């Protein structure tokens, strides 16, 4: 006798409304709705750190991820994105980058991409610095 397949849930989810969307595993665990586009209180799992981030930490002379502990993968216009505090806007992840299912791994990718973006001569702040820096 072949086993019966589990019935699919017929519950509809409501997008974008606090308290009405489907809860994530993290939200269920902490018993609170996460109103941000990611869990701001999620602590980084250092076992998932990428080689690029290790090199960055070493170059800066720090002991850990430092400010990058607060960087997480969020979303913008239904696409994965990371918030760039220097440009005060969301930066969208290119479609060709495939993201893992684990939030910790996604966060590490977000951190790596954000560092590359912020340190790039193409960053929007470079023009501002050229125009306004005093010394």
């Amino acid at each position, binding site marked *: 006798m072949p086993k019966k397949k589990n019935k699919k849930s017929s519950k509809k989810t409501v997008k974008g409304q606090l308290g009405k969307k489907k809860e994530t595993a993290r939200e269920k665990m902490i018993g609170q709705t996460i109103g941000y586009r990611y869990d701001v209180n999620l602590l980084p799992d250092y076992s998932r750190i990428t080689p*690029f981030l290790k090199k960055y930490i070493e170059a800066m002379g720090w*002991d850990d991820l430092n400010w990058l502990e607060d960087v997480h993968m969020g979303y*913008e216009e239904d696409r994965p994105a990371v918030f760039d505090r220097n440009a005060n806007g969301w930066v969208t992840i*290119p479609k060709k*980058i495939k993201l893992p299912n684990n939030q910790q791994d996604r966060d590490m990718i977000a951190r790596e991409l954000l560092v590359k973006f912020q340190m790039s001569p193409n960053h929007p702040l470079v023009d501002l610095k050229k125009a306004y820096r005093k010394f």
Partner: protein
Amino acid sequence: MANIKTNENKTKAQSMGLHSEVLTGKTQQKFFNPDEAENFYYWGTYDVDFNKRIDLDVNDLDCKEANKKIDELMSQGYGTIVIKNPQGKHSLGVGVLNKLNLIFEGSLGYFGVGSIDGPTVRINGRVGWSCAENMMAGKVVIEKNAGSCFGAAVRGGDLICKGSVGARTGIDQKGGTIIVGGDAGAFTGFMMQRGRIIILGNVGINLGDSMYDGTIYVGGKIGSFGSDAIESPMTKSDVDWIKRKLKVAEIGEDFNISNMTKVVAGKKLWNYDALEPTEKKGAI
């Protein structure tokens, strides 16, 4: 009557005439280039060598002259700068956006090392009000005590005081970690929005008052909880992370972390209307 009918589909703010245009937030159509060259430093910052060390006596300099001198030394490639005779001067070491080892042989006044982004700072003395205000990244270690508003509006990095701190520590904190080896005063974590505070000693009254988010860990006694601050269970992830952070902070090696109290926001102050998802774009 007609107005009432047309107002039914509007939010309260729209009905009051507060929004005539569609709110689009601060979204920018910016995309990462994954082939960007590997670079760890901001454009326009100096290439410094941690092994290149110099002493700077600021006894006869005012804060502006001293800060300008620090910038000059970085432009010459000095990666370790030791400041002699700071004598409690205000606003020393502010606005350093470079990787750097900055060591103060003495105490600082108000607003020391504010708005820094990257350096590792060691202060072998005390600090006055609002030390490391608006800090973006880096590590600051204070060997003795700190005044009020320690780490006000910190956005990132590690701010460590091995002694005790005054009132309103981490006020308006927006990220990063504040670690205090001793006690903290009243209103610690007042209106904090995110980030983490670790206090190994006792804290005063109104802990985490009006906090929106973020986490406060307390090792000692709590004077009282502030409005909307509630206790939350410690997880293994919390314990592992604190253990790691205390190692970075060079304090509390034998501290019993599992007995700490974790305080988070009750989120009763989260009063957002239907416009909230749009308004929040770019405003975390």
